[in-house]
């Protein structure tokens, strides 16, 4: 089963829930947690595990070879992103704008734009007992997270079979990286906080998931602050609130020390049990049962 943990707003508890849920479920299941927030991966801060594999990740970028180029201008015409432009007798390529679609390269009559691999980031695979942890980290200055997220998901699919529970810690927001991180998930947990900001942004995330036709439910974090508008919203729109993680100073202190919560705070464990039960019911016909 693939479960993505997303939110509209940043800082509402995606990583807190991802790491705790993954660790909790790994008591009785094989679990792989993947940090897909490649621009600022932080799940690893909370897990004590051993590095077992790392690899560089590449994207393909055209490189202009002027020898045979007839300056026909076709490359810049077919590029939707203005990543290739012609300036007089010169072709310029902007690697940050390139989406690796190969159009300029494939459609060049003289093969003057061969695609060259360019490093965009690094993938690391850690392991401790039943819990595997994979994170990718994008190179500083690289603008596009989507290709790295996609390759990270491919790594998970190649290395873990269907029996392993897959938890994805998604990036914040509702833009392309979030779509990429959630589009293959069987279920999406949207975590939010009961504040006006949290509500506004979770509504954006809910609308996004509806558009993607995803099964999803809401978890409220830091329950007790703000107001109950999020509860009213979910009731009105028939959206399940799967769990409510309380607002506690002790939680913030453990988090600040890079520690997991569920083995130390009983109220958190109770909420994780609710989530596990909900996911089991959702996944009733699939193996393994949680």
């Amino acid at each position, binding site marked *: 089963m693939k479960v993505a943990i997303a939110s509209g707003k940043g800082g509402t508890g995606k990583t807190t829930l991802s790491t705790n849920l993954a660790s909790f479920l790994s008591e009785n299941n094989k679990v792989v947690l993947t940090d897909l927030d490649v621009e600022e991966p932080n799940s690893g801060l909370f897990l004590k595990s051993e590095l077992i594999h790392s690899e560089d990740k590449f994207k393909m970028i055209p490189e202009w070879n002027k020898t045979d180029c007839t300056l026909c201008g076709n490359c810049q015409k077919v590029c939707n*992103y203005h990543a290739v432009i012609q*300036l*007089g007798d010169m072709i*310029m390529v902007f690697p940050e704008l390139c989406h690796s679609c190969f159009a300029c390269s494939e459609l060049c009559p003289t093969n003057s734009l061969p695609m060259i691999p360019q490093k965009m980031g690094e993938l690391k695979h850690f392991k401790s007992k039943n819990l595997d942890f994979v994170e990718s980290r994008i190179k500083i200055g690289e603008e596009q997270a989507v290709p790295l997220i996609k390759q990270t998901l491919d790594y998970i699919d190649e290395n873990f079979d269907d029996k392993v529970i897959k938890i994805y810690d998604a990036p914040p927001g509702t833009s392309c990286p979030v779509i990429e991180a959630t589009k293959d998930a069987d279920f999406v947990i949207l975590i939010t906080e009961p504040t006006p900001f949290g509500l506004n942004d979770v509504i954006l995330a809910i609308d996004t998931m509806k558009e993607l036709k995803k099964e999803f439910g809401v978890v409220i974090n830091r329950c007790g602050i703000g107001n109950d508008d999020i509860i009213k919203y979910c009731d009105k729109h028939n959206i399940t609130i799967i769990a409510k993680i309380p607002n506690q100073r002790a939680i913030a202190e453990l988090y600040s020390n890079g520690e997991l919560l569920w083995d130390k705070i009983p109220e958190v464990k109770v909420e994780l049990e609710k989530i596990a039960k909900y996911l089991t019911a959702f996944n009733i016909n699939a193996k393994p049962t949680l």
Partner: protein
Amino acid sequence: MKIAFTTKGTEWDSKMDPRFGRTEFFVVYNEDTKELTSVDNKDVENDAHGAGPKAAQRLFELKAEVLITGNGPGGNAATVLQKTGTTCYIGAGEMTIKEAYDAYKNNDLKKF
């Protein structure tokens, strides 16, 4: 010499557009012929990415040697302008085209 402006209109008293890549128009003043011409850049609205390089390329085709704008081009566009040898002056975003031209002539604009 040809001088290009990023603008919101096509007349001397039109407002400048402080943006480079997403400017509404490029207005070009040819100092030799005293002609003022313009190019519509609004089709850039359809582009989510790459507005800067595209605008820089458009500017290159206009053969302007000097660009007068507001905020200044972003990184990609600046690379193109550097390659094409276009001199860029910034800080004219709130002026009219005429005011921007006078400011340039009086050396009151900052070189990018």
